[in-house]
């Protein structure tokens, strides 16, 4: 396939960025989207030009590093995948593809297609954990049975890869889906319930401080989430937050 790529280039956080055109040829449908970018970068190396910088690592959809806005959609046109799992068979010869970084005030651009997502880390640092020491002096793992349905639901919430697609998909750049997934995982498990009140308050406070927008229930986050994290988590977080507020 022959394609025209329009790619966002930006030297650093303070520089002004712009879209640059790059033609590519000989792209095979079995290639992944990132392998296509590898080929383009090889060509840039040959010419002695600075390569296009993008985050990626595991290339199997689990580390959450990759973060491209492709033709206006986080992780591109296919559903339930990260960019690294997108294959070129989803495009056709002659296509023009727009490739941009995730856009959000709380995710400043570092260079080209790389953004700073440490705001997510700080939300988790606020109380995204169970306050238990790792000394191993806990009760036997089977002491507290947990309903399978609840355990599975907690697991589903916990499969969030922290990529930020939910924020990039949202017109308000809200981080509610991300934050609520973590709140839900713990709220559903007896081990997490102990600190549920403090946790939801601390995490929501941090989320607001980071400059993420409000949730206006459009549901775009759920549609673009590569792991299919459900909107029910947001509803659950809202209930948890309300309960925590009443409790004080």
């Amino acid at each position, binding site marked *: 396939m022959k394609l025209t790529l329009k790619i966002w280039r930006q030297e650093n956080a303070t520089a002004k960025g712009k879209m640059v055109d790059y033609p590519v040829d000989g792209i095979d449908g079995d290639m992944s989207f990132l392998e296509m970018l590898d080929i383009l970068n090889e060509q840039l190396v040959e010419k002695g030009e*600075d390569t296009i910088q993008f985050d990626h690592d595991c290339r199997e959809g689990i580390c959450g590093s990759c973060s491209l806005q492709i033709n206006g959609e986080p992780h591109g046109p296919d559903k339930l995948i990260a960019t690294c799992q997108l294959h070129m068979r989803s495009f056709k010869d002659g296509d023009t593809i727009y490739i941009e970084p995730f856009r959000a005030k709380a995710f400043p651009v570092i260079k080209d297609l790389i953004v700073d997502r440490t705001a997510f880390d700080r939300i988790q640092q606020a109380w995204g954990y169970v306050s238990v020491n790792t000394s191993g002096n806990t009760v036997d793992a089977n002491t507290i049975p947990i309903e399978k349905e609840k355990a599975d639901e907690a697991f589903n919430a916990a499969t969030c890869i922290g990529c930020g697609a939910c924020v990039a998909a949202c017109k308000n750049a809200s981080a509610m889906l991300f934050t609520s997934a973590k709140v839900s995982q713990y709220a559903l498990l007896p081990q997490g319930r102990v600190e549920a009140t403090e946790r939801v308050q601390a995490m929501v406070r941090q989320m607001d401080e980071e400059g993420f927008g409000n949730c206006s229930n459009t549901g775009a986050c759920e549609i673009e989430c590569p792991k299919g994290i459900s909107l029910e988590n947001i509803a659950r977080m809202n209930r948890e937050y309300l309960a925590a507020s009443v409790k004080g």
Partner: protein
Amino acid sequence: MSVLDSKIPKGPLAEKWTNHKNDINLVNPANKRNIDVIVIGTGLAGGAAAATLAELGYNVKTFCYQDSPRRAHSIAAQGGINASKNYQGDGDSDYRLFYDTVKGGDYRSREGNVYRLAEVSGNIIDQCVAQGVPFAREYGGYLDNRSFGGVLVSRTFYAKGQTGQQLLLGAYSAMNRQINRGKIKPYNRHEMMDLVLVDGKARGIIARNMVTGEIERHSAHAVVLASGGYGNVFFLSTNAMGSNVMAAWRAHRRGAYFANPCYTQIHPTCIPVTGDHQSKLTLMSESLRNDGRIWVPKKEEDAKAIREGKKKPTELSEEERDYYLERRYPAFGNLVPRDVASRAAKERCDAGYGVNKTGQAVYLDFSSAIERYGKEKAFTSGNKNASKEEITKLGKEVVASKYGNLFDMYQKIVDQNPYETPMMIYPAVHYTMGGLWVDYNLQTTIPGCYAAGEANFSDHGANRLGASALMQGLADGYFVLPYTIGDYLSKDIRTGAIPTDSAEFEETEKAVKERIDKMMNAGGTKSVDSYHKELGLIMWNKCGMARNAEGLKEAIEEIAALREDFWKNVKVPGSATSKNAELEKAGRVADFLELGELFAKDALHREESCGGHFREEYQTEEGEALRDDENFKYVAAWEYKGKPADAVLHKEDLVFENIELKTRSYK
């Protein structure tokens, strides 16, 4: 007499660890506040160690090349984590887990280390459940288990196909708690460029801020390397793109011996290579072998017809299929250990029975499992006369609930539906059992420099069993290192902060900057990736699943020549003072070009076959690995002497007091 002292505590096997913990020195809480520890890597081993050390009161700095500690490659581990809980009541015990691991490693690991690993394994599960790790559960609410290769019990705990993710997020959450307390300072998007030694002790590192390009000095009283394995020396592997050997290799160059570099795990169930555009290979979890049956066509002409697209695998009857693992290894069948399964796949493909266009693939078939589960489900839900369609539908649902995400992953890459047609798989480089030599305390041959997780060599011998990497990473990080490092640090309570303006920091920083300059200004024409691919091909063809003396000698020469060429002809565009992926890759590939040669040298010297190391000259008539315990029952630890060719071999004899050495049989 070897210079290597493994420091295995005396006494009966089951009491060694307890006695050792009672004997070693402790640091009092007030003194811990004055001691700094650097942890390189934030995967299971590094993340767990950092969190625990910080909880104990030490000041910890963590370093990872990713943008967040949560993205370390442990996250990609799929199948599960072993523990000798014996929740299934199927005869499991610490001893059995220990025995399976030593046997699985083809008797090339240390008894003392492995027993300790088995001993703390149950505690890991308790710990993780307390942290809120959502393991799979049965309807009664208790934890579920499954089986992995090389064992006859069900001891593997799991969270669908994302066990590594859930355990790593657990360790990351423990880290977050300490970051919030100010006890861990995370340095993300930072790469360790070198280790700084002061008076022969590890006292800090030189790191590069990968966003600004700034070269930084960080000091500490001890440095923990938990930087993972070196499978990416093969270019194509299941490792993450950024996984690299730099931290371990820089320590090796500074005096840490590198042990058994040739022990590499080639995992049997990966998605096959399809063309030369591929940048990495994707694993399909070993857990699939619980239910998938591996086969190739019995007749060569059927294999040929399938390769040419004239026949479909589903058109072949049961009689026309060769379930070669079940045929060759009736006791373990499809659940033989990884090295055995990989070699058997290669044997069939080399003999002309391979499928896929390339002939380099075998089938992993779920149709029997779908039928079996479907019948069971129909029966238990009261449908005693279910039709074939109903059974298939129910069976697919059960299989989806167990392996759904893996099936989806496969379909996205290969564009085929594994519920309808068998998966195609082929072995790929996955894990490295070799690594930095460490003693029982996980200390390398450099005082104050520790290695944990995949970065060390200690527990898996010549072959690792499935679901044991997660166990070892967390055991090292949560339960071993925090004790043993205290013994060393107890001598540092009066040292005070380590200054970073010493001559040693100055010199090491200078060497790092010169190396970067050299790479940026090589002025050549060839890309870093082109060297990496070339190295990978040499490694795969000559140091891969089967090795021989001739090929290994060629590999040594070819890698040395390639390395020389690299420093003359590599081209790194961009600048050293901003984010530059080409420069990052160049530093890593430069180290792989040294490690690769040592790897081949190690493989050449080991004139036996054991575990993942298969020398064609040393095999039984049936093609099984032929070990030589008389001459090679030792750990090969290499000392750096300027270049890989000059590396000096040190031997640590392996002593087996509790297990009788036998020919490994899974028949």
